């Protein structure tokens, strides 16, 4: 009869990226079950809709998460525009897509750096974050902020990007491509990295669908689902194919995210080439009607994010809800952790790209 021990893992742990607690039931180095516990960064941000009007709440929505900051303000603005039935000018839609795809590039490169740090390859981590600084410099030049951009507003965007700046963005992305390809080779073809990633944390296609998983976590198990196909905003005008892998293990998740960065660079170049001229904002002054409801989905770097807004006739909303991708992926994570080695736990937790501050708002 082997002994089962319960090892508490987190929220403070050197390899754990997010404040999540796991109770690991372990038998002789193999994890039998994992019970998650969250609640360390709950801030109750959804209650702030009651004291801030819908124009001011966008700044609260941005600060839910530092990495997906622009994504939250974009999704919130789109939901309120649906609620108020406001039509956003085309140039603003293209600008939002450019910033959102840059946000995706910076989030994926950040994640790849964290993954490298998790299996011990620190110099790869430093190189990834060095490349990410170039993207943050683009944000600083075009919006005035590095991480929290504060550039999306209800009705459009606050700033325009001129043609010379767009050309500069294209140059920076071209400069990133060569070094990024070398980093990809280090992730996808190196033998020691492969030893840590292949065959770990396998989730089958049926399980992935039943668990309600979203994002690259889902696409690595072979399910073809990506919200950008739905064509909200300017996504409908860009050519796009979701990247899918059928392996379902950690290596497949790294591959999907690495290839998504290259695809995002192509989408940005397409958007820069076809951006139309025009205004970037329409003034929005009226209040939502009493009882009006709207909901919206957006493909953030971590997966599909669902927004719901309800109005009550005043300038404050009645209810605003954001269901973030990590909330949907936690169930999948507990399934993936069954049967793995104790040393692989942090690798699996990291490959779902957790963002606990988003999940708990």
């Amino acid at each position, binding site marked *: 009869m082997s002994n089962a021990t319960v090892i508490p893992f987190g929220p403070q742990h050197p390899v754990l990226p997010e404040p999540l607690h796991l109770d690991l039931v372990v038998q002789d180095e193999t994890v039998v079950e994992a*019970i998650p*516990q*969250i*609640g*360390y960064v*709950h801030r*109750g941000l*959804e*209650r702030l809709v*009651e*004291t801030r009007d819908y124009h001011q709440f966008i700044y609260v929505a941005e600060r839910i998460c530092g990495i997906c900051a622009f994504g939250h303000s974009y999704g919130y603005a789109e939901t309120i525009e649906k609620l108020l039935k406001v039509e956003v000018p085309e140039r603003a839609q293209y600008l939002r897509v450019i910033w959102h795809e840059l946000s995706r590039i910076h989030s994926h490169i950040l994640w790849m750096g964290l993954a490298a740090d998790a299996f011990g390859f620190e110099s790869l981590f430093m190189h990834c974050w060095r490349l990410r600084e170039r993207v943050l410099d683009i944000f600083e030049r075009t919006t005035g902020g590095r991480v929290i951009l504060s550039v999306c507003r209800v009705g459009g965007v606050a700033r325009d990007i001129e043609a010379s700046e767009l050309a500069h963005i294209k140059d920076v992305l071209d400069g990133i491509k060569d070094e990024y390809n070398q980093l990809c080779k280090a992730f996808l073809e190196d033998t020691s990295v492969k030893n840590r990633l292949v065959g770990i944390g396998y989730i089958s296609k049926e399980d992935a*669908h*039943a*668990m*309600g*998983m979203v994002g690259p976590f889902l696409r690595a198990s072979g399910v073809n689902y990506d919200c950008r*196909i*739905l*064509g*909200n905003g300017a996504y*409908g005008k860009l050519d796009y194919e979701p990247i899918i892998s059928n392996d379902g293990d950690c290596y497949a998740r790294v591959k999907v995210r690495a290839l998504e960065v290259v695809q995002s660079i192509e989408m940005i170049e397409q958007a820069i080439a076809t951006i139309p001229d025009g205004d970037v904002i329409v003034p929005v002054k009226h209040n939502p009607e009493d009882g009006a*409801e*709207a*909901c*919206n*989905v957006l493909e953030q770097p971590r997966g599909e994010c*669902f927004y*719901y807004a*309800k109005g*009550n*006739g*005043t300038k*404050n909303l*009645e*209810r605003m*809800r954001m*269901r973030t991708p990590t*909330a*949907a992926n*936690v*169930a*999948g994570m507990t399934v993936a952790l069954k049967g793995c080695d104790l040393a692989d736990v942090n690798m699996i937790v990291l490959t779902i790209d957790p963002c606990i501050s988003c*999940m*708990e708002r």
Partner: protein
Amino acid sequence: MALITEFHPLEADKLLELSAQRCKDGWRLVQILGTNTENGVDLTYSFMKDNVIENFCIPSVKPEDPIPSVTGDFLVAFVFENEINELFGLSIQNIAIDFGGKLYRKSMDKPFTIISPEQKAAREKAAKAKAAAEAAAKAAAAKKAAAASAPKDPEAERAALEEKIKNMPPEAAAKVRAAMEAKAKREAAEAGKAGE
């Protein structure tokens, strides 16, 4: 394909049947949310398949009403159901992984059901303004109806108006008289039409 969103009401006892049906048809549970209202908590369940999102709302759930859990069909619901139990004080039963009230470290019980004093004042002010607007609209409509039904006396009106324009400069007086005549002609035409 564009995103289509729909909102439907739902009764609490039909919930398990609906979720079993959706699971079989290949729909995904997207989220469960609660909204605090005066009569209780409105629970909204959202299901998604391809490009359609359907939202089902169970209105006015009180803390004592038992709601069954859908974690039997959709394991992902345990996060949302635990959150609703803790923040709104409802009792959703048979959740697959039940945290028993310890999911979030809160400083108070059922925080989302508490309305702060400033908020209460703001809501009362909005309700008062709405009631006042409704009353004013009703009074204006009644006044209009009364004015329409009372018979008009054109001679008396003209005499009263002549009194007023005696003091005005000549061009303005001529304008007012011309307008009066046009109005009288229009009213006569309308009266004629109504009589037909």
